[in-house]
């Protein structure tokens, strides 16, 4: 799970988290008892028609703004350690 979230955990963290996971299982147990036959999961609190935007381009950020917070940049690109083509990071 930590891998999926890209978090590395210390030993003590693993312990407390296991305890938390147990708590969540208790909560799930409670929910299992609720009869949800035929109930739609809530998508949104209020029914709304699909908002659509006109297909019109507008300039966004200037490159200096876009790169302004970059921890590492080269020209107008973001620098990261080399990635293998097509994989997951």
């Amino acid at each position: 799970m930590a891998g999926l979230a890209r978090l590395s955990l210390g030993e003590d963290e693993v312990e407390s988290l296991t305890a938390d996971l147990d708590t969540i299982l208790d909560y799930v147990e409670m929910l299992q008892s609720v009869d949800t036959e035929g109930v739609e999961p809530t998508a949104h609190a209020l029914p709304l028609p699909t908002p659509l935007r006109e297909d019109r381009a507008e300039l966004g950020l200037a490159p200096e703004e876009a790169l302004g917070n970059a921890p590492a940049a080269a020209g107008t690109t973001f620098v990261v350690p080399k990635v293998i083509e097509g994989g997951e990071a």
Partner: protein
Amino acid sequence: MSAASWEPVIGLEVHVHLKTDSKLFCRCPVRYGCEPNHQVCPVCLALPGALPVLNRGAVERAVRIGLAVGGNVNAHSVFARKNYFYPDLPKGYQISQYEDPLVSGGGVDIATADEGVRTVPLTRIHMEEDAGKSVHGDWETAGESHMDLNRAGVPLVEIVSEPELRSADEASAFLRALRAILRYTGVSDADMEKGQMRCDVNLSLRRPGSGTLGTRTETKNLNSFRSVEGAIHAEMVRQAEVLDDGGEIVQATMLFDADSGRTQLMRVKENADDYRYFPDPDLISLDLDPAWIAQVREGLPELPGRKRARFQESYELPAGDAQTLIESRALADFFEATVRAHGTARSVANWMLRDVAAVLKEGEGDIEATRLEPGALAALIGLVDAGRVTPQSARDVLRELAEQGGDPEALIRERGLEAVSDSGVLESAADQVLADNPEMAERYRGGETKVLNFLMGQVMKRTQGKASPPLVREILARKLEG
């Protein structure tokens, strides 16, 4: 090679850039070849607090392609987050569609050598945003990647075929047919070189006649017809070798190396990737008014398949010729307009398939990029038919019409390309040639009628190629027989 004893089962996943002005979820322009990170905003950069808003033009194009392939456009579809980490994916998730795609089913017709036409069924078409990309350079050897997010957020449709393709040729045919439909409907320019259409190949092998599917591999991000064909061949060979050795195919993601012509293992897929899909809470579900979908359907142009069939029937053209003429709407429209002006479809077809095609090849390839008009082409063909200009001269005129436009008759006069049809000149030229080539004349009279071509050639030389060929032929024949 034992590939003959194995039957390939091929499915394609094609990612196509929609031809919109702005990105799928933000207003950034969609343009190609820009400086890195010049087309970005808080939304596609995934700055804290930014939110997506759906582009109507992208939805319309996605619906168009869904209708054009005869698919079922679902009035209700849902955008879902596909969660994974990668530097070209700013949000750490891609907004895509999962359980409820926009289009289900559909099919693409391909011409097959033996069967004529076959419909390759599609599984689905869904909308999603593209990721950014890495800019290549020598910094990579120094262990760096440079990320450019201009492409992040560009609207895509993912078109998934059923695993019903049986060869590299069929795969190519499928992609070409799909590309024609995309271009006809204005959904995408689908130019693979610009990265507007990319293809993943899913391939497995099985014994012919077997009902079960073998383990498949996925070869990703192929961006030319050649690499698709190459990847299919390479993977077929590789898998056949493994299986023939008694081994098992491991489910994996492969990359195709065009230089070596081989596929290489990129990543073994032990389990399905856990993308933790869930409906994106920042977006409302996509609910389309059936009346609007009907409107889009009405706005569709005549699609390639129907047009080809109509050309075959109305103009009595063979399938192959018809297919070439309909490859672009502009070319097809040009052909039809020329036929209307000239009258003889076969003649126009010949000109377009041979001479116009040659001119287009020299230039940018698009008929719209030239200044040739259907009326001008029709007139030119008419002049040739009437013997007013030789075919050879006409080709030069054609080239000029394509570059400058204009009226063929005027051009011929200006350049002095009028075919010589003055019988006096021709008669004397013919006499000269016959006098200079008595053996040829003998051979003709002896039955070798094809030496007439040589003699005609000689007359043409004497008249600087301006003699009207039908007249020359007639005059020579008369003199030889007379």
